[in-house]
C-alpha cells in the first residue's frame, strides 16, 4: 500500500509500521497524517475495522486525531533503544485479547513520551482504553520501568471502539526466537482473525 493511494478496498486490516516519515518535519508523523491514504484509514477505523500503529505509526494516528493525545520528546533527553517490559491493561479489545502477563518488546524512539490533558487521561482510564503500560518484571507500573516519561506509564492506547491500537514498543521485532523473543506474536497473530 503506497501513501498516495486513496482506497483500502479489499483490505481486512491496516498496520502502520514504525520508522520515520517525511523527515518527521515539524513533529513526528505530522506530515504523514495528511497523506492521501490517511483519510481512508480514518474511514476504515470509523467502520470498526482493525488498525494498528507502531511507533511512528502511533505518532501518525495521534497527529491524524484518530487517537487522542500526543507523543513528545522523551523526558530523559535520550533516544531510547532497548528491550522493555509492558503489561496489557485491557485484554478485551481486538488487538490485545491474546495478551497476558508481562511482555518484552524493544522500543526505539526519541519522541515516545505519551501525554494528554488530565481530562483525556481520565477518560482513557475510565473507558479502559489504556492498552499497555510500561512495567517492572513483576508487572508493576514503576517510574524506573517508564523509558520515556509517559503519563501514567502509558505505552499504548485504544480508540473509543477498541479497534484501533497505537503503541510505542515494536511487537514485529519479537516474533521468532531467532530475533530474541516471541512476545510480539500475541498482538500480530490477531491478524489471522482480521
Amino acid at each position, binding site marked *: 500500500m503506497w501513501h498516495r493511494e486513496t482506497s483500502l478496498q479489499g483490505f481486512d486490516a491496516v498496520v502502520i509500521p514504525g520508522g520515520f516519515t517525511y523527515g518527521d518535519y515539524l513533529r513526528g508523523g505530522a506530515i504523514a497524517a495528511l497523506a492521501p491514504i490517511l483519510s481512508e484509514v480514518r474511514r476504515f477505523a470509523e467502520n470498526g475495522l482493525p488498525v494498528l500503529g507502531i511507533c511512528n505509526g502511533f505518532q501518525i494516528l495521534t497527529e491524524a486525531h484518530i487517537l487522542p493525545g500526543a507523543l*513528545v520528546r522523551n523526558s530523559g533527553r535520550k533516544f531510547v533503544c532497548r528491550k522493555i517490559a509492558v503489561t496489557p491493561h485491557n485484554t478485551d479489545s481486538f488487538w490485545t485479547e491474546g495478551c497476558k502477563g508481562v511482555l518484552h518488546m524493544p522500543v526505539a524512539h526519541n519522541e515516545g513520551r505519551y501525554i494528554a490533558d488530565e481530562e483525556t487521561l481520565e477518560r482513557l482510564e475510565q473507558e479502559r482504553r489504556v492498552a499497555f503500560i510500561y512495567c517492572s518484571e513483576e508487572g508493576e507500573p514503576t517510574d524506573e520501568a517508564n523509558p520515556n*516519561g509517559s503519563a501514567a506509564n502509558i505505552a499504548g492506547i485504544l480508540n473509543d471502539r477498541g479497534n484501533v491500537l497505537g503503541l510505542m514498543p515494536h511487537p514485529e521485532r519479537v516474533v521468532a526466537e531467532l530475533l530474541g523473543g516471541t512476545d510480539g506474536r500475541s498482538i500480530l497473530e490477531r491478524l489471522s482473525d482480521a
Partner: protein
Amino acid sequence: MSRYRVYVTLKPSLLDPAGRAIGDSLRTLGFSNVRDVRIGKLIELSLEDGNQEQVEEMCRKLLSNPVIERFDIEEDST
C-alpha cells in the same frame, strides 16, 4: 505578497528536555543566572493574497499541534 512569521512553542506546562539541556550548557559556560530555556520554531510564510485567518487555519491543521503547542502569528510589514 504578504509575509507572516509563525512562532510555535511548547505549552508552558510541558517539559522541554532540549531546552533544559541547553540551559545546562549555558550554565556550564558561566551564565549562572540562566533559569529556564524553552525552544520553539519560527516558520516564515510568504503568501499571495493571504490573510491572518488563513494562517491561523494553517497553524491549527499542520504547523502546530494544539495538544502540546501554542502559536503566535506576526505579520511582517517591512
